[in-house]
């Protein structure tokens, strides 16, 4: 379907990433007229060059957001730009949230509760994994919450994974194949992965479930229209301030235009979604749309993580496998499993390495320069092993997206991100660092070391909850005070757990989109 005008449509979706494209596919298939606005370029599989340098063009740079506070949240590295959004360069590690993740406040008196439980989301996890193809071993993954077994056999464990797994076993710890949305066999017309470690640069074969091969094609086939390089500046409200009536956007010609719609889905990721809501303030919503609680932008979370490295004498085949790793450990996932800290943690083991880039071989030892560097690089290219500890950040209302002093090219305030890690997160990281060193020693590493703390993933900022006093949206992502304005994506997470968020983003989006179809009479 192609339109040359901005006549009213059923649904406008802002953002062509994982959540936005899934919404577009479901809504268009149900017969709704859908227009998707994407601020970045119209990427295609042929743009995904195998190069860590080129991969940087997939990350978010504009409109810029300043990353202030004691601990940066990794705004650029974690964000996306163009069709596919952040999911185009995600590593497709797809564990599920656990049941306890949904009731932190009830169980521990800290953090937040989700307005739904695991059993509510479980069927959507099951359906999404069957839809896009997830590889793993549900039996070996003893920590896994209930659900249908994975549709695909697990990824192989190469020498690096086997060596580090021996360290886990020697310490009495368990490993299981990492659950990944990467095909290990041909599935639904897509080919199996070649295990060559280019996930970060985007997967042009279609083996990894990025939106270019999952929900964008389905949305297009069902008639959704995608408009690239079209930056949405604000959501427009009716005169009474009760309903969204469309969006204002700036297209390639630089002119502000209006697209009217009966419902608006904001799926512009963790920074731009709250920024658009702030910039959409009206007389009735002076603090921004959805901000009756004063919590719009609050509870931004990034997973605190470290890499633990070990140097081995054997050939680790560390260039093989997915970028996200080959094995999983969640032995310390229970919220109280780490003394002195509240929160979960998990290990992702044996990431495929490239020589350069933020997570590459050279950056593992940033202190080595000069004549010592090349011998290190040659040794590490064969013998370096690594694993990543992902820990849970408790939601903190002081960690937030707000409007900063700068303005974008259209004169609208830019976002400012304020973020720091709490004491629990730091204690989880410290425990992981000690445990990781012991594992590497037990695995036979001649030396081991760890990276500084880095922020992985961005979540929160428009958290869902049971009421407008303590949250921005309901469990379907609908703003409490503007029900035809729906937030989708990781912005909704009230807690972050210690698992990668993209599987949950998909499950929530499927639930939200189908509810919109079901309840359409309220919107149309």
């Amino acid at each position, binding site marked *: 379907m192609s339109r040359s005008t901005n006549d009213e449509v059923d649904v406008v979706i802002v953002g062509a990433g994982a959540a936005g494209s899934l919404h577009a596919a479901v809504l268009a298939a149900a017969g709704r007229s859908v227009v998707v606005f994407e601020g970045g370029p119209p990427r295609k599989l042929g743009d995904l060059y195998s190069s860590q340098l080129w991969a*940087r063009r997939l990350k978010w740079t504009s409109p810029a957001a300043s990353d202030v506070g004691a601990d940066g949240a990794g705004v650029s590295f974690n964000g996306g730009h163009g069709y596919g959004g952040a999911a185009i360069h995600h590593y497709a590690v797809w564990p599920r949230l656990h049941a306890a993740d949904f009731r932190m406040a009830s169980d521990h008196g800290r953090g937040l509760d989700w307005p739904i439980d695991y059993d509510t989301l479980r069927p959507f996890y099951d359906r999404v994994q069957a839809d896009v193809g997830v590889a793993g071993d549900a039996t070996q993954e003893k920590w896994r919450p209930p659900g249908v077994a994975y549709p695909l056999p697990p990824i192989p464990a190469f020498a690096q994974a086997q060596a580090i797994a021996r360290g886990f076993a020697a310490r009495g710890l368990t490993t299981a194949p990492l659950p990944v949305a990467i095909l290990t066999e041909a599935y639904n017309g897509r080919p199996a992965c070649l295990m060559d470690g280019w996930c970060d640069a985007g997967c042009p074969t279609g083996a990894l479930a990025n939106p270019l091969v999952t929900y964008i094609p389905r949305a297009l086939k069902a008639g959704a229209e995608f408009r690239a390089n079209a930056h949405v500046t604000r959501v427009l409200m009716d005169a009474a301030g009760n309903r969204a009536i469309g969006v204002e956007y700036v297209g390639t010609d630089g002119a502000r235009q209006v697209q009217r719609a009966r419902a608006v889905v904001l799926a512009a990721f963790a920074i731009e979604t709250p920024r658009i809501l702030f910039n959409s303030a009206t007389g009735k919503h002076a603090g921004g749309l959805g901000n009756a609680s004063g919590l719009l932008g609050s509870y931004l979370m990034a997973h605190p993580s470290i890499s633990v490295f070990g140097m081995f004498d054997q050939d680790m085949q560390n260039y093989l496998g997915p970028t996200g790793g080959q094995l999983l450990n969640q032995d310390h996932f229970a919220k109280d499993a780490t003394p002195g800290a509240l929160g979960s943690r998990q290990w992702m083991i044996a990431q495929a390495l490239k020589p350069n880039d933020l997570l590459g071989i050279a950056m593992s030892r940033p*202190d080595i320069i000069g004549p010592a560097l090349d011998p290190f690089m040659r040794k590490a290219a064969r013998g370096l092993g690594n694993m990543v500890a992902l820990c849970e950040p408790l939601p903190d209302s002081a960690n937030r997206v707000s409007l900063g002093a700068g303005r974008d090219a259209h004169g609208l305030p830019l976002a400012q991100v304020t973020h720091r890690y709490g004491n629990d997160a730091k204690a989880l990281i410290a425990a992981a660092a000690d445990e990781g060193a012991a594992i590497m020693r037990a695995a036979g590493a001649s030396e081991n070391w760890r990276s500084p703390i880095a922020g992985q993933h961005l979540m929160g900022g428009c958290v869902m909850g049971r009421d407008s006093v303590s949250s921005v949206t309901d469990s379907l992502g609908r703003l409490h005070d503007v029900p035809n304005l729906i937030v989708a994506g990781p912005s909704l997470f009230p807690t972050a757990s210690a698992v990668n968020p993209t599987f949950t983003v998909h499950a929530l989006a499927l639930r939200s989109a189908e509810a919109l179809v079901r309840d359409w009479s309220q919107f149309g």
Partner: protein
Amino acid sequence: MKAGALTIACLVAGKVVRISPAEAHALAAAPQVLLPHEAETLGHLAEAMVPGARAAGIAEYVDSQLFADPSESLLIARYFGVLPPFCEFYTSGFAGLDAAAKSAHGKPFAALAAEPALTLAASLLAGPPPGWAGPPAPLFYLALRGDAVDVVYGTQAGFEMLGVPYMEHILPPRRW
């Protein structure tokens, strides 16, 4: 030059050509953004950090990326929270480096011998050396070291040098 090798647009003898950073260096391509002294300082710093970076065309590579639209830039600085445009980050860092070199040795950084250049470069990771005025010194260190690693080890030739299979799906295009 290998198919798919890193290429950049350079000004050589008054004409724009698409060549590799190493070729641009060999042909003494004129920088488009950096001043000649800044390019010289960049080359000296990168060479001290990652031997081979100067001949691999580090100055020409960074200059070409500073000339590009920030959203198209390949500089690793964007991962470190450096906001576009990135030029100020680099040029103020070079100025800081010169000030520190003059404070310690009485001459600009590009005039330092290899050993004092390496010592001063290494000190940046711990914090600003005496005389430094510029972006956070550890951040500048990480970004510049990352750039140098990119041009020496991040290309097909760099992988080959380390014996790492490149296993590309799609090679980067010749036109950068």
